């Protein structure tokens, strides 16, 4: 069984070892979420090390990290959860996923407004 490293009060998850070099699917994302969520809720800090991760997809992050925004805002989350060794492209993906998840989970009006765009078009036709 894979054991995570503890650095003082931080737990470090080496994603390449925990999931693999390609982090793509929703199922993989949920595995990471199940590992991280209880620790963050207990006030523990977590570092996710992306060293050796070749592929980090938004679908994976939408399920691994996105739902954490139900419990924390981005500022609170950044105090507890951090990422080590991301590539430029991975920073961009993380940024977009977190921004998106924050709106989705913490600002339902934004999500509703997105859906409303289509509804307004239809109402205009009827």
């Amino acid at each position, binding site marked *: 069984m894979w054991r995570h490293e503890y650095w003082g009060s931080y737990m470090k998850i080496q994603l390449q070892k925990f999931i693999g070099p*390609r982090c*793509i*699917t*929703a199922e993989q994302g949920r595995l990471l979420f199940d590992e991280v969520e209880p620790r963050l809720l207990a006030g523990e800090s977590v570092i996710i090390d992306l060293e050796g991760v*070749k*592929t*980090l*997809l*938004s*679908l994976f992050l*939408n*399920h691994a990290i*996105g*739902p954490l*925004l*139900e419990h924390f805002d981005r500022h609170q989350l950044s105090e507890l959860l951090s990422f080590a060794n991301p*590539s*430029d*492209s*991975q920073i*961009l*993906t993380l940024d*977009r*996923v977190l921004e*998106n*998840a924050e*709106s*989705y*989970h913490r600002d339902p009006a*934004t*999500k509703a407004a*997105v*859906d409303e*765009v*289509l*509804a307004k*078009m*239809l*109402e205009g*036709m*009827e």
Partner: protein
Amino acid sequence: MVQKIIQIPHINDGPQDFATLFNIWSQVNGCHQNVRFDFSRCGFLRPNAVAFLGGLARLIECRNGRAEFDWDTLRNQAVKNNLRQNGFAGQFGYPSSGWDGNSIPYREDIKFQPDDVAEYLSENWIGKGWLHVCEGLKNAIVERILELYVNAFEHSKTPIGVFSCGQYFKQLNQLQLAMVDFGVGIPANVRGYMKRIRPDLSAEKLKAADCLKWAFQRMTTTRPGKSSGGVGLDLLKSFIRRNNGALMVYGNDGYAVITAKQETYHSFYSAFEGTICLISLTCDEAFYCLTH
């Protein structure tokens, strides 16, 4: 069983060429006959046509028909070489060539095997030496393109998988990749989503162009459940625009064109059930940048 013969003409990647593909699809769709594809009038086939025809043959087979490519009618040597080099001919009963030239293999993914697809994109598409980028940038490009495969398997509910094919065009210094599925299609998916969340409105009236435009915006997702979405297509779109690439997406009765200079969404006079994505990258590493 009676056999239907379908002529394959020259097929490029303009709107008229996609209409030709959809016309071929409509001849096959709903007809429970065996089909023979005749190449005698064909002098040019782009990767979008190759992936589409391969998928169409599997669609016919999945409906208990028989699809046959009549290799004796293929007299154009360039098309023949290309179909042998990319492995399409080998998949459908004609020997493949011993060398792959400027082709990128024809591929069928019945189920999503992310590692295999990532390897295909990394080694057979970007990694063949036409685009000189470092390992990190190569991985980054694969990440963006994989978003399309994820979408195809997650949202299209494709019954027979995803079909891919590519080509390097030396004179244009351009690398192309086409992906085809015969699933729900983006406009139909968006209309279905609207029907679920606003049953009081006539979602079927939504124009395909508006559905596609909505789907390519940030935060939009038709995914049910409690997870956020709507990032993948937006990231891909940004990547294409920043790096002087081009992305065409045809779905149902609409299409989207995204380039560095334009982002346009159209309703189309021709239609099919499914999605075709055609990505073109310029093989000049000076363009490639992934930061904001």
